[in-house]
């Protein structure tokens, strides 16, 4: 891919108004969606890891689905839920909330595809770590909120960190659901992958250059959060 990048023209290609707008939009929506995914995903992951919910397997399956669905299908699923004629969408519209073709829709689509990354990472870590340390903390008098803040979260930090990084990177790369569900308008809903898709029609070189930007940003994020981890814990 590197070989086909038109290095000389790179600054011009990337500096174009459309590219910058797309990059900016992508970064902003990805940040928002990642935050949303953390807020929703961490409690969900803990409940799945520790709880004895009767429907835990079903819930987990539903959460994991976006990970494996093809983009078009994800988009269709969102559309039939949050779309104007969708189950929830209709109700929201009654309340005067219309998310169609808005940046909110982009964030929603990205949250949808990013959530599983967080849930998988945090649930896996919570499950393997078990509740042993939480129990110890409780027998020392720590109330549940304290346990969460001072034991669970710090212990899950590495998993949370890499889960968040993957979620953010996945948000950056989200294409199909955004396209199907949110549309594509410069500065509002046209994120970087959509811009790449469009550029490819007229200027494949520009598309490759933009792809490279995306790859580099995503790789950078994934790389950054891979701090060297601690050795085995004494038990």
């Amino acid at each position, binding site marked *: 891919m590197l070989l086909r990048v038109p290095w000389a023209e790179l600054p011009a290609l990337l500096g174009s108004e459309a590219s910058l707008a797309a990059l900016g939009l992508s970064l902003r929506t990805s940040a928002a969606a990642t935050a949303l995914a953390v807020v929703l995903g961490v409690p969900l992951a803990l409940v799945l890891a520790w709880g004895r919910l009767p429907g835990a397997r079903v819930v987990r399956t539903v959460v994991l689905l976006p990970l494996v669905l093809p983009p078009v299908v994800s988009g269709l699923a969102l559309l039939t839920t949050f779309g104007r004629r969708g189950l929830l969408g209709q109700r929201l519209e009654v309340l005067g909330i219309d998310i169609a073709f808005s940046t909110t829709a982009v964030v929603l689509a990205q949250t949808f595809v990013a959530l599983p990354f967080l849930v998988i990472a945090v649930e896996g870590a919570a499950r393997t770590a078990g509740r042993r*340390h939480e*129990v*110890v*903390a409780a027998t020392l*008098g720590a109330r549940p909120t304290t*346990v969460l803040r001072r034991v669970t979260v710090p212990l899950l930090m590495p998993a949370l960190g890499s889960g968040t990084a993957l979620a953010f990177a996945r948000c950056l790369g989200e294409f199909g659901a955004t396209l199907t569900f949110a549309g594509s308008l410069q500065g509002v809903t046209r994120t970087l992958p959509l811009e790449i898709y469009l550029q490819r029609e007229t200027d494949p070189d520009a598309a490759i250059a933009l792809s490279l930007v995306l790859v580099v940003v995503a790789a950078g994020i994934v790389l950054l959060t891979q701090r060297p981890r*601690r050795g085995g814990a*004494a*038990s």
Partner: protein
Amino acid sequence: MSAPALAVRAAVPERDVEVELTVPAGRVLALLGPNGAGKSTVLGLAAGTVRPGSGEVRVAGRRVAGEGAWVPPHARRISLLAQEPLLLPHLDVLANVAFGPRARGVARRAADELARTRLAEVGAEALAERRVHRLSGGQAQRVALARALAPDPHLLLLDEPLSALDVDAAAQLRQVLRAALRGSGRTAVVVTHDLLDVLALADDVVVLEAGRVVEQGTTAEVLGRPRSGFGARLAGVNLLLGERVAADAVRAGDDVVHGLASAQPATTCRAAAAFSPRAVAVHRAAPGGSPRNVLPARVTGLEQQGALVRVRGETASGSRLAADVTPASLSALRIGVGDDVVLVVKAAEVEIYDA
């Protein structure tokens, strides 16, 4: 009278544990028993890490577990030192010890200072800044002990607090615990396999076997006049539990032992005969002469204990007895494991009491 600090009357069916015990406020209870007897389970019931299948648990009179009631561990004002140290791996040693006080609202600096004091008490002040995975086994145990003592709880639950410690440390920490427990008005339950711990720390003793309480009483009572095999072996005496066949004789299976009846008149049909291993002589064949108690047995073990050798034997009815003899007499006897011997003890050395 105020409510006992801890009252457990509960069952954990999946572990086949069903116990009833009470710890009055301000007293230290030693919880003894063989491996798998249910000691850790009882502590778990008190701490809230094990839920009873039935029955109830009360801490300071408050129902903390039982039908409809459940008070989570953190709200019980207890502190548990579990059998595994389980230090928090993301904190250093000092922060581990300061964790409890911090969780109970002590300010950071005060908690750190308290933690340093506790660490100094267990001889681990030099480890304060260490990461926990860089501790040796005994060091981790000391830190865990300091951590359990730090929150200043109403009820302290200690599961084998001095195991894995070296002789010096064990002796020193036994004193630390003694100071922390005795005369402080603090209530504690201590699980231990060590007679020294019982003597140094406990007011009362409960012996568990196979999930049931088989003996309880003050330390002096239980160790002085043990009524369970385990208590007897811990106290280092031989015990025959059985039927009273005379004011001064007990029969266990086919074994009959005569002794001195206690001053109080007999009230029960079950009785115990206790005698020290030092009082037992070992012969290859039954001797003539005065001793009234002659028990044929098979040697099951030989063990050096200090300057003496302990000969362990079992009678045909299954009574397990020990005799302490000098190495010289042992080599004269030329006995080994599996040999048949005769154990002889003077009736004057045997104490008979109600069981």
